[in-house]
């Protein structure tokens, strides 16, 4: 009985799985493209570093904290008008990826900042002493030195986003979380509930494993 209900669920589960991947993938991409530079800005404008600028540090830090202090489920609802404005809809995985991206940016930015802080300041200073430009220090020193940290951080972000994506499901975002809530919660269908939980567990384990593997292979220390 279980087996047949799972089989009948497969097409929907399959779709939900790819919706989750899509949402999380877009969120991660935006985190990389926007969150990482913001994290670098937070780091290099800190006191005693080569682009020290307290005003920038404070303003960017405040915006990051502001977004991070809003619980995701509220951010999701709060951003609905904004999502509607840029996409013309608030339903579906694409719409959900808007709020996921907004949440992912400050999350990853802080992780990037923390990972960059792990670099010995002396190494940065030695680069300043040879007359390297700020851009060169970022590109040739900070990025390679903090790469393992940046990758581990991306893994953490991905797993958080998988969790968030379930919440996004509740407002019509689609994905595995949506499936679990529609069948498992509203219809009391335990089979679907368990299946989705297992899929999520496997997904998270896989992401963690791949993340760790890549982080380890780029680490030269």
């Amino acid at each position: 009985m279980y087996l047949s209900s799972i089989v009948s669920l497969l097409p929907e589960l399959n779709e939900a799985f790819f919706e989750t991947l899509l949402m999380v993938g877009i969120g991660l991409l935006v985190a990389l493209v926007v969150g990482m530079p913001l994290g670098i800005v937070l780091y290099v404008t800190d006191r005693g570093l080569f682009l020290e600028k307290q005003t920038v540090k404070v303003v960017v830090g405040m915006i990051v904290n502001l977004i991070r202090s809003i619980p995701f489920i509220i951010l999701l609802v709060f951003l609905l008008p904004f999502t509607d404005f840029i996409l013309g809809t608030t339903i579906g995985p694409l719409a959900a990826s808007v709020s996921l991206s907004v949440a992912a940016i400050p999350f990853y930015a802080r992780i990037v900042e923390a990972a960059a802080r792990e670099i010995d300041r002396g190494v940065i200073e030695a680069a300043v002493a040879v007359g390297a430009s700020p851009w060169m220090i970022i590109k040739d020193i900070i990025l390679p030195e903090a790469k393992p940290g940046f990758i581990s951080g991306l893994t953490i972000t991905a797993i958080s986003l998988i969790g968030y994506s379930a919440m996004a499901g509740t407002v019509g975002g689609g994905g595995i979380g949506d499936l679990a809530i529609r069948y498992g919660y509203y219809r009391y269908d335990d089979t679907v509930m368990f299946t989705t939980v297992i899929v999520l567990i496997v997904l998270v384990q896989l992401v963690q494993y791949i993340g760790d593997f890549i982080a380890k292979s780029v680490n030269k220390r």
Partner: protein
Amino acid sequence: MITLEKVAKIYETKSGQVVGVDNVSLTINKGEVYGIVGYSGAGKSTLLRCINILERPTSGKVIVDGVDLLKLKSKQLRVARQSIGMIFQGFYLVSSKTVFENVAFALKAAGVEKTKRKERVLELLELVGLSDKADHYPTQLSGGQKQRVSIARALANNPKVLLCDEATSALDPSTTKSILALLKKINLELGITIVIITHEMEVVKEICDRCAVMQDGKVVEEGPTYDMFSNPKEPLTLDFIKTVLDFELPQKLLDSISGTLVRLQFRGELAEEAVVSDMLQKFSVKGNILHGKVEYIKETPLGIFIMELVGEKTEQEKALAYLKDRVKQVEVI
């Protein structure tokens, strides 16, 4: 080559102002090896970092190779820094880059074309004796090897000045010797002016032409290394000299002394003359050497001996007068 004029660095902290460097004026000549010694917290490291503006002085002037560094815009300062190499106690190599890439980065920073970098890097690794380690990562190297890589990096853009911030303090004595030998070679063969910060007098004795002693952000004494060793004026300088030249006699021995205790200091070529044996032949006194050493300061000998003169009072006085006449630095203890 380097002129510091009333350089001061004051830190503003919550509990008030902290003076790191207090109006220091120094001139370091071209081709010289200059040492700055002091205990930790004396401000010597801050002073060194003011020379390439890693630390921006609160006031004063920093002139390197005729350029007033404090007047430069950030881009010009970057160019100026390319002719001031620097090495550190902690080496500070980029752990994700190979030895080759670490050195090449300095060339890249100076805008050297990629095709020309390779040749120069290999040349530099040859100079520091690490040609076979080009593809190693820093974690695979020993402390001495890491410091060699950082020297290669510092020399990449043919600097006129090399700043060494406690460069040998993290190394064992024999590695320290080999790094000092390398610095000496760089100074002699490439004519690079070297400024060394250290708390080890051994380092100063070994390679510094001149040195300064710092305390509380100020230079308390400065001069040629030999003069500092043979004739220190400040108590702090004497403290440092004592780490290399210490002549404490055991109390038990002092109690049993019957004759006159004399401290003789021979400078330069005098150390090679047979003053003491001449004296012993001329006068009927016996000389008993209790302590002594000939130290070579940048290859010039400095001999210090403590001896006991035994014999008739008048003969002792005559012998002493003879010594005073020939040696100059004679002291009855």
